């Protein structure tokens, strides 16, 4: 297992290195100007050239790239003297992105299993025309349209809830709370809501209560209770309005993709001889499903998920910039628009690390479940 993880990490580091190299060249060649360009309003061209020279902004690109890599190792992801956004600004977008990405994945994953779980084992090999068509419809909805359709409704619902429970933004200055505590509470509120939602879906559609989800929900609620007070909770709840809107749009994107993936994978597995044998031996539907189908779906699903991670990142950029959620996606959009190449490189680095982290986690989990992957 250690050998497997080492191989994955080394391969991922090479990928990140190549990716950043390509993006560094792309940004510096294709976007006009550099991170010093905004100073042209305050300085003469000569002064700007001198500053550019002293900061090494006129050096060949490969030198600047390696200098940037060295500074990343030294802990600064947006080096270069004048910075429109510094490393701290960029790092502060990681938590908001995770706040919407993890719940969206969780919600989409839970909902995407429903069409398969509601189908009889004997009919799993057939095409699920309705759910496939509906999923394709979900994928093809343009995010600004989703925002337009549900945005006003969301505002209305949240306003009703805020009015009913007298939730108003506290007059107390938020600076009294650290940004981390605020973000943590936001994350806990979002996760608890999503877990409650998924538990309700399980109860309504599958008539069962998942004990792990329930345990996780109680743990999160306890953590929220310990870490929060009424005033902070009010501010957090008001803040979560746009988070839930972003999650709704992002989940719509993911659900369509995940349902189609699940349907195709399960359909192919249900045609395999070992499933037919299990059915012929008279195993119950739940036994065949839980012991022979679900476990085998993880491999192809994990591979497909790993391959579609760049599309996930693309979805983040599209959805976050549509809803103005202050995550990595919308910041990347803004930095590119503002020609802030240093900050853009910082976000690319974080996005690459996030993608690779998710990919390695998926691979390790896959290897843990499937000995064939581990031994190869």
């Amino acid at each position, binding site marked *: 297992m250690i050998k497997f993880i080492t191989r994955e990490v080394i391969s991922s580091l090479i990928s990140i290195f190549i990716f950043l190299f390509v993006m560094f060249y792309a940004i510096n060649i294709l976007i006009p100007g550099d991170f010093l360009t905004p100073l042209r309003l305050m300085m003469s061209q000569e002064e700007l050239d001198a500053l550019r020279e002293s900061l090494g902004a006129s050096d060949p690109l490969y030198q600047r790239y390696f200098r940037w890599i060295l500074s990343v190792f030294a802990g600064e992801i947006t080096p270069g003297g004048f910075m429109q956004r510094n490393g701290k600004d960029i790092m502060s977008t990681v938590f908001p992105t995770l706040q919407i990405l993890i719940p969206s994945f969780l919600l989409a994953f839970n909902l995407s299993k429903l069409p398969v779980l509601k189908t009889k084992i004997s009919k799993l090999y057939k095409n699920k025309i309705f759910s496939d068509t509906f999923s394709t419809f979900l994928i093809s909805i343009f995010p600004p349209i989703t925002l337009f359709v549900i945005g006003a409704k969301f505002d209305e619902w949240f306003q009703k809830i805020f009015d009913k429970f007298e939730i108003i933004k506290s007059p107390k200055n938020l600076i009294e709370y650290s940004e981390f505590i605020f973000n943590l509470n936001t994350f806990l509120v979002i996760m608890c809501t999503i877990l409650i939602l998924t538990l309700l879906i399980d109860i309504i559609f599958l008539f069962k209560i998942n004990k792990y989800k329930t345990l996780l929900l109680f743990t999160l609620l306890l953590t929220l209770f310990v870490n929060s007070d009424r005033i902070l909770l009010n501010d957090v709840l008001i803040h979560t309005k746009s988070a839930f809107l972003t999650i709704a749009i992002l989940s719509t994107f993911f659900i369509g993709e995940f349902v189609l993936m699940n349907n195709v994978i399960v359909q192919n597995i249900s045609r395999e001889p070992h499933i037919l044998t299990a059915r012929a031996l008279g195993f119950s539907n739940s036994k065949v499903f839980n012991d022979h189908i679900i476990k085998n779906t993880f491999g192809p699903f994990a591979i*497909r998920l790993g391959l579609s991670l760049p599309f996930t990142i693309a979805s983040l950029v599209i959805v976050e910039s549509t809803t103005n959620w202050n995550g990595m996606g919308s910041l990347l959009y803004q930095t590119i628009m503002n020609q802030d190449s240093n900050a853009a490189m910082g976000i690319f680095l974080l996005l690459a690390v996030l993608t690779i982290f998710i990919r390695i986690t998926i691979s390790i989990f896959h290897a843990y479940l499937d000995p064939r992957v581990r031994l190869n």
Partner: protein
Amino acid sequence: MIKNLIQSTYKTYYGKVGYVCLILLISFSLLHNWLLGGVWPENIYDPIVGFDISVFPHPTTPSETHFLGTDPLGRDVLSMFLAGSSPLIRLSIVSFFVGLTISLFFGTTIPFLFKKLDRVIKETSSGIILISPPVVLLILGTGDFTDVLTPGMVGLIYGFLSGFGVAYLVVRSKSLEIANSEFIKASQLLGGKNYYIATRHILPVVVPYSVSYMLASTTYGILAYGFASFFGQVGWTPNWGMMIYDAITYGSYLGGVNYWNLLPPTFGFMLCTSSFYFLSLSVKKQYGISI
């Protein structure tokens, strides 16, 4: 092989729906060319600079002269809707064939002919896979490349990134899996050259994988182009993203959104993305592709 693919996918429900959507899109494009060629006066029905001075104020509701009404800038919505299909068809076709060619050529030949180079290309491809095409479009749109970003060029970029990224990795892994098959060993024993084996024995088996991946990727390419056009990053081409932006932005300035401005491009996007995704699904179903 392509004929076989078309025949087998057409047999499924998904394939039929996909082809119907595709034919509809192509018909829209041809119909627009025909209407603008002689039936519609260009100064009124041009999808970009057309303006009907006999009607005021704009936007107007559907009428006999403008079947889907006019947008806030006085352009005919039906003309804009029909014209919007052409760039996406061009983008999709270029993206699909570029990606298919790259993934099949590199994915089947490199692992057999240049084994040392294969490792390098695999790592490069793993790096390229991280590059998100909408971000590339944003970068190009921010620079002085807005005029260069034609649908064909976007298709080329998207095809290259998808073909050399995800599709290449899938085709490569499948090729290496097939390389251990008995019929390949038999072919090698009979004196078959590596290039011959790669192109004659392995290529036909991996074509459905590449086709299904590139069709699915094309769907995301359409959405990425829509996103870029929504934010005005693709220059003055008739496109549905811009129509949606105009309907939402200018519509709200003029007292609410006009649904006859908003629904046609939304329907267009659905039709276009669904056509390629349904075709991708039909290939997956027919050839038992799980990943």
